């Protein structure tokens, strides 16, 4: 099966770049516009592009649905866990300053980094999960009927 050669070649080239751009957006969120939400959607877009070009089954082999489910929960837990950790260190919920008591702004920095990673994981997984959920439904119109 070799239709859409150009699409396949170009997307093979693009997908790693899209994923990398996602991480750029993620970590650049410290200094400028960016952050977990945007990065998560971009990362999910790379998976969705892969599924569109190479088929849903190939995508599910690369990123299994069970990983996606665990990713969703893990993302939320990473976010919430950061908050719970601040509890155990004696601060209010999500008060990152307690991570480095003598230098509060560093603590804020680490805290937001962990939280944004959680957001990235959760958003990317949810987007992929939504795509998988809709994509795996059997179409009751075949391609010829269209």
């Amino acid at each position, binding site marked *: 099966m070799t239709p859409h050669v150009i699409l396949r070649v170009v997307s093979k080239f693009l997908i790693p770049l899209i994923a990398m751009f996602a991480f750029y957006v993620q970590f650049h969120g410290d200094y400028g516009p960016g952050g977990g939400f945007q990065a998560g959607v971009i990362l999910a877009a790379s998976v969705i592009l892969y599924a569109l070009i190479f088929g849903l089954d190939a995508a599910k082999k690369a990123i299994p649905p069970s990983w996606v489910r665990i990713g969703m929960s893990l993302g939320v837990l990473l976010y*919430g866990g950061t*908050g719970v950790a601040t509890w155990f260190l004696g601060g*209010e*919920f999500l008060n990152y300053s307690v991570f480095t008591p003598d230098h509060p702004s560093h603590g804020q920095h680490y805290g937001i980094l962990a939280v944004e990673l959680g957001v990235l994981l959760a958003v990317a997984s949810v987007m992929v999960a939504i795509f998988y959920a809709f994509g795996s439904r059997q179409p009751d119109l075949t391609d010829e009927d269209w």
Partner: protein
Amino acid sequence: MDILSAYPGWLIEHGAALLVILPLLMGAITAIMPSERLSWVTTMIVTLVLTVTSFGLLLTIMGGESQLYRLGGWDPPHGISFVIDGLNTPVLFLISAMALLTTLYALPSVAAEVEPKKRPPFYAAFMVGVAGLIGMVVTGDAFNVFVFLEVSSISTYVLVAMGASRDRRALTAAYNYLILGSIGATFFVIGLGFLYMETGTLNMADIGRILADLDGGSRVAMVAFGFITIGLGLKLAMFPLHMWLPGAYAHAPSFVTVFLASTATKAALYLMLRFTFTVFDPSFDYVITVVTYVLTGLGIAAMLFASLQAIFQTDARRALAFSSIAQVGYMLLGIGIATAAGLSAGYLHLLNHAVIKGALFLCLGAFWYRYGITRIDDFAGLGKMMPWTMGAFTLAGLSLIGVPATAGFVSKLNLVKAALDKEWYWAATIIVVTSVLAIIYIGRMLLTAYFQSPPEIDGEVVAKNEAPLMMLIPMWFLVLLSVAIGINADLISDAARDAAAVLMSGGS
């Protein structure tokens, strides 16, 4: 206050955040659990912790201390703060206690109504819904209210749609609920946008302060009030905006119906109180106009029309759903009276109605569980077939009508007194008239159950088959609670009076 000293200090100190965070995180874990039993046990533990925590908070409130929890250590109005005061703590306790009781009931009920594979995610959605409801009650930040409102609504749509394995109309009911619920939430958020334009802050106490300084503000604040009232009205099933409610209650799994009927509209009603009386203030003339003419009018209309509609339903769950809309009318009337007595009567009815309607829907769920019936005509002989469940249904039904020595009587009496104090004799008359209507629709069910003989299948009378103990315990707990309130209402009346005091003082 002996009980309170048994609580660890951190539980009270961080309780406000724990109430939201715990179900949210455990919901995320439950979603990927492999076993159904494990997910039920987790839900049980979480709701138990919630109940214990909110009870502790309730005790501190009774001791006269209100709390402000700063999330992330950021001071309000910049940071998001959680507020624990006399107005929201009883509602918090109501939500967590109802969650605990319905979880107990859920084990047999969910086993009968939801497909096995979907059960762990079902419990996860339930816990996220609880977190959303608690969040929207506890938060002191107006935009946070919207977020939690949507968190609870979205999980509720899912929970309602889970009824599809029993009745496919659950899907369309959930869809209609989704459309109207989203429109309501969007109206609410438009209102918040206008409020932010007017005041430049999102902290509810801060908005209230600035609006008071501006003496009600310009037309922008007026428009904001309109949008917020309509948005919340959709969520709490205010009379002409109630179209989503009967379908959602009638077709959801019975455990979800119980939880929705006793908490979801109540939390929205709490928000209505909070926004009308503490964020805005009845001393602004546009607010008092809406409260006196619109809310009262719609409340009266709901009491009359929804009660009448309830009489003509063939399906028992739909009949009780319409009755819920009518009861929301009573609470709106309490708000409309807008005196301390009226507010505390409305607030009392909010709490009592949650107990009563919870018990009634628990009984209906048990009927379905044993015999698969929801139509009133099929109730024939239930008095003999399920004596304990029907007994609970009867007592709760009497309480809904407002027979003396039940919870319903206490709140209706207070409401009538408040109306008479304000010399609204017509309102008092309508309360009595709608109670008569309630006699008709509850009486119809009781008559069928007790004075018709059980149906015969193949010449044999259908055997007696009582509901399992797991269902009877929460049911009778609520029924006995309602009778206890009817006999001695001091404790709950005090709570309602404190809440009304918070409202009348403008939230400070």
